């Protein structure tokens, strides 16, 4: 069996467009999902009982169901309730909700391992609750769980490959389309695998640089 990459690489505009959309989906859902995760983590630790129950239910449902089912529910199921979202919007929403639930648990682990002495010290310096959370608790917590959080973000980025199932034109969709047109499945998937590999490595480097630089210092 001979491998003919030229035929597949000849479709580079489609591949590039797909790559751009994958990056866009990740660029939007990573920060939004992480913020959602931090908010949910705070709710589970400091929130009222009703809030804790609500967030707990959301987290358990998302973490215990497959991503593709969540995606299909949003894209195919919501129109039955009158909410029709475009493929791209549905993908971003699904990725945000997915990352939010997992990030909640990851960040919560970081928050709950904060030494009580830190909080007491902050209180004795007359910092209010918001300042304590955002300046004293959160940055070291994020520093502690940063590797796990970065891994989860990369998992969600790779999970965007599933969004091609609802016709979102990201890079897996492009690869599938090229494969079915040229019948060169092996070559298409090798190229896309390399693309995802490159994206994952680049994303990890970028986040490991940005975290200490902007969020938790040193």
């Amino acid at each position: 069996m001979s491998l003919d990459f030229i035929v597949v690489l000849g479709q580079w505009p489609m591949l590039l467009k797909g790559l751009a959309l994958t990056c866009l989906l990740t660029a939007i859902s990573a920060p939004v999902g992480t913020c959602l995760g931090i908010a949910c983590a705070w709710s589970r630790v400091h929130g009222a009982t009703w809030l804790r129950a609500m967030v707990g239910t959301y987290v358990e449902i998302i973490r215990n169901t497959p991503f593709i089912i969540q995606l299909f529910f949003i894209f195919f199921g919501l129109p039955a309730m009158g909410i029709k979202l475009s493929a791209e919007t549905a993908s971003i929403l699904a990725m945000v909700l997915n990352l939010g639930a997992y990030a909640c648990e990851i960040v919560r682990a970081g928050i709950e391992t904060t030494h009580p002495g830190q909080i007491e010290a902050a209180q004795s310096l007359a910092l209010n609750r918001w300042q304590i959370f955002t300046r004293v608790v959160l940055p070291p917590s994020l520093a502690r769980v940063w590797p796990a959080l970065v891994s989860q973000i990369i998992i969600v980025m790779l999970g965007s490959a599933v969004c091609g199932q609802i016709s979102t034109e990201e890079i897996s969709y492009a690869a599938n389309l090229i494969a079915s047109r040229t019948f060169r499945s092996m070559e298409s998937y090798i190229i896309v695998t390399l693309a995802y590999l490159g994206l994952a490595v680049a994303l990890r480097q970028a986040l490991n640089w940005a975290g200490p630089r902007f969020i938790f210092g040193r």
Partner: protein
Amino acid sequence: MKFKFATALTGLLAGLALLTSASVQADNSLTAITAKKSISLGIPTDFPPYGFIGTDFKPQGMDVAVAQLIADKLGVKAELTPVSTPNRIPYLQTRKIDLIVSALGKNEERAKVVDFTIAYAPFYQAVFGPKALSIKNYQDLAGKTIAVTRGTIQDDILQQVAPPTLKIQRFEDDNSTVAAFVSQQTQLLATGAAVAGVAIQKNPQIQAEYKLLLKDSPNFIGVRKGETALLDKVNEILRQAKADGTLNAYAQRWLGRGTGVLPE
């Protein structure tokens, strides 16, 4: 030093052996099938009335009947393997199946990688949409959204003839494509007559109807390139079935119509 060289040499020789063995396997499928007394056939299982799972959880339908007929005439056991539109040709190429009996239409691209037998069942692909939308010709498709299954004939045709402002949303299988149309994520649906028939019947609220013919495209059986012995044998079986009325009887039973005149 000696140890490393020996392993490297063994590896190289093994690799070479693999490469050369691959080229020796053309046109031996028929002998392999008769030897192991079974034939692996790719059939649809989500595509009534050509192939679907009945209430007894067994596959049935027009294509399934023809697949079973071929196995019976060859005197071997039929191994029915469910395939989907995007994966059936890769499955054939990688020898997971010996024949594609899955509402396979003939076009030039496919003919480059697959050999086709004579046609055995009628089929057409068209655009379907709600009554309120008026689609009389390809230009009326401009600015609309349409759902289609990836890698199908209707996908190819739309790419070629549809105006560039038509937003084509591709899904992996007929179920998702129909789900997108039925949930009104897209305005129009491009698919085979049989699939649309069922979808329209089960979803009267959309008030969908036939709009535009894309292609009259009967079903052919797909054979791996170069397997002339198997191709000739299957053609022989199909011609026999056409002559003695078996194919017509199957068509009446599963499609509710005769085969009509099928091309060679």
